[in-house]
């Protein structure tokens, strides 16, 4: 029994590790693919070579990030079977088809058109190339849509029955796909991906502005990123609030853990800003909170009663400290993002956006903040779902494959070593590419002409050829 428990914990750590590494790349490439699409579109529309240089600059970075996303994604598609085979057997009939649709509609689309996007400029017409870029961007968002539907179904399962061998069987695909938490989670995650990318782009722009305030590429990318921060960050706060209310409706225990509500509050629950969850005593030590604010946020009523973890048996509670803290990290970063957005609007209004070294430094510090927020958010929602894999229906401890702890431990160590080495190297290369000044290289002609054929194009615009 003890050994089985160890295998469960190890398998959970392994899944958490591989999926956390994996989510970093899509969170970045979803936003970056859309950014590339916008850049190429602006270039085709305006003929402004700055957009083309930016497109090529970020395309190289995209290629590395996307490659890491692909290989770390293959790991995920097999991990369900190697470590969680009982879960796969039981939930496969419901979530399997959704993932198959993800592969068929999204993965092939991305991978199929990626080749043309990366290597096809000058080989195919500009329209066809732009179409390929759009397809890649569309594919990344579509992929997010399917996998978030899967994840949301595990959080708020709907539209299924259970057959005689204990498998979840589909009864209504509409209810399964559009399960109660899916729309909220999808919006929240796609906005998070856009914000993550915007803050990376903003940080790179800020870095190069600090070196040269006149660099046109740096100015353009910084400006674009700050528009995103100013518009999307506040939207994300609203989306997050809706998502939270939805979670309270369907997974109240998760919200109790997020809020640190060990006790029930019949006359309005406080919002704790700080506290140290004490699992032994089932209380929040050193709590600092605003009375009744939690009830106001979640139930839009100062005096609305809210139940606490005292109404939930211990073995059905998620690990409160992890959920409590990761939630606070996510929200804290979100607030900082909103602040950056506001400051950027103010500076733009004062015409000082490119002449604010202190703000540029702040933007650089905020560069990786999106990744931290995305990871913290996912930890909140995934750990908050415990002790279930399919919320309310299938326990995590009943989902594990018949694997022995040493096998899981050995593969876990292998994943850790390989991921840190290879993805560490990849991250280093991405940082190096970001360190290169955008717009350097052979000068572009001032008035580009659009050529019809590729050979003509090659003769007139050698800079458009794939070789650099």
């Amino acid at each position: 029994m003890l050994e089985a428990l160890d295998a469960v914990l190890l398998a959970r750590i392994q899944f958490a590790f591989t999926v956390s590494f994996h989510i970093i790349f899509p969170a970045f490439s979803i936003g970056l693919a859309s950014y590339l699409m916008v850049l190429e579109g602006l270039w085709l529309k305006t003929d402004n070579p700055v957009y083309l240089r930016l497109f090529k600059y970020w395309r190289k970075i995209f290629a590395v990030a996307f490659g890491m996303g692909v290989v770390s994604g293959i790991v995920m598609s097999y991990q369900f079977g190697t470590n969680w085979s009982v879960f796969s057997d039981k939930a496969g009939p419901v979530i399997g088809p959704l993932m198959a649709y993800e592969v068929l509609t999204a993965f092939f689309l991305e991978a199929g058109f990626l080749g043309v996007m990366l290597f096809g400029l000058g080989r195919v017409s500009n329209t066809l190339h732009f179409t390929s870029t759009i397809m890649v961007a569309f594919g990344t968002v579509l992929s997010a849509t399917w996998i978030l539907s899967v994840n949301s179904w595990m959080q708020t399962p709907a539209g299924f029955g259970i057959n005689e061998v204990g498998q979840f069987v589909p009864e209504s695909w509409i209810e399964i796909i559009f399960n109660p938490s899916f729309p909220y989670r999808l919006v929240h995650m796609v906005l998070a991906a856009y914000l993550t990318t915007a803050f990376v782009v903003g940080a790179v722009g800020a870095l190069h502005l600090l070196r040269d305030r006149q660099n046109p590429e740096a100015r353009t990318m910084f400006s674009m990123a700050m528009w995103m921060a100013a518009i999307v960050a506040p939207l994300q706060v609203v989306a997050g609030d809706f998502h939270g209310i939805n979670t309270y409706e369907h997974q109240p225990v998760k919200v109790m853990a997020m809020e640190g509500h060990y006790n029930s509050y019949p006359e309005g629950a406080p919002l704790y800003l700080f506290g140290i969850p004490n699992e032994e005593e089932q209380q929040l030590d050193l709590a600092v909170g605003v009375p009744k604010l939690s009830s106001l946020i979640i139930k839009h009523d100062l005096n609305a009663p809210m139940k606490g973890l005292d109404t939930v048996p211990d073995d059905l509670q998620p690990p409160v400290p992890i959920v409590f803290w990761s939630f606070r990290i996510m929200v804290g970063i979100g607030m900082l993002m909103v602040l950056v957005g506001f400051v950027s609007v103010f500076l733009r209004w004062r015409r000082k956006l490119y002449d604010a070294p202190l703000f540029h430094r702040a933007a650089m510090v905020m560069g990786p903040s999106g990744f931290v927020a995305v990871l913290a958010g996912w930890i909140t929602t995934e750990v908050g779902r415990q002790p279930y894999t399919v919320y309310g229906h299938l326990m995590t401890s009943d989902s594990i494959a018949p694997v022995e702890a040493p096998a899981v431990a050995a593969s876990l160590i292998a994943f850790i070593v390989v991921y840190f080495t290879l993805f560490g190297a990849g991250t280093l290369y991405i940082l190096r590419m970001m360190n290169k000044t955008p717009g350097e290289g052979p000068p572009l002609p001032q008035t580009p002409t659009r050529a019809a054929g590729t050979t003509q194009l090659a003769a007139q615009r050698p800079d458009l050829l794939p070789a650099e």
Partner: protein
Amino acid sequence: MFDLPTIWAGLLALAIFIYVVLDGFDLGIGIVFPFLKSDSDRDVAMNSVAPVWDGNETWLVLGGGGLMAAFPLAYAVVMPALYAPFIIMILALVFRGVAFEYRWRDKAHEKIWDRSFFYGSLIATFCQGIVLGAFVQGIEVDGRAYGGGWWDWLTPFTITCGIALVAGYALLGATWLIMKTEGELRETAYRYAKLSAVATLGFVGIVSLWTPFLSPEIAERWFTFPQLLFVLPVPTLTAILAVILGWGLIKKKDQVAFPTSIGLFALCFLGLGIGISPYIVPRAITIQEAAAPDSSLLFMLIGALILLPIIIGYTAFTYWVFRGKVDPEAGYH
């Protein structure tokens, strides 16, 4: 006759076959990679697959995801049974996948990424061969779970299959290079194509003769009279294709060897199918037993019938855009 589980077994077999051919040649390039003579040859070899490798590997994801979706029980049994080879294969694929970008980004450590590309490709291929062999030799099942030991997959037969697949993928890779390159690289490719062709055909012979001895059930299919008439075309066609392959390699017909090699793979795949059906986990779980409910299969089938032709269409388009011999000066790096 053709119920949903059977159709899905056929579709999955098709997806796996497409994977084997497509990733086969690009893993094969990884296998012959260190034997290429110059840095520029290696650059060209890698660039010949750089635009398509992600797409090729997506078929593997479809294989895994499709198996889970259509035959969740089989997926739940096969993955733990082949735990180590699958994990090692996946990690090896990570090593080779990242090399496509990394080797251009870090010229100082190019050799490291070249090695990562070679060993990654080699080990991934070997593990796929092991998986194939272990699958054919049979998997022990207990209830709805794997019932065997952790090393059941490691036998002389599976190791032979592993080496056989390395030879086979090397053949696909080398014949792809013959088709896609010129000059000295093409000459080198011819040399290794001949070597790997001899090795591949030899291993096909060994594995084919060995397989019937693994189980009386397989032997019965190949060696009793009425069935024999149905299966006889497979070895006959294999022999014919082997002759054409030899002719193409000796006479240096650039466009012949690659398609012929694909044909050989198709026949081996068919031969394997003859030995395995109607099981999805050989001699333990049938296609029908492992199938997901019809509602799952139908929902997916609608999507697959619409989307697979589209996917094949734009995949073909990508290959068409990058058709012909590779220009050594091209590549976006």
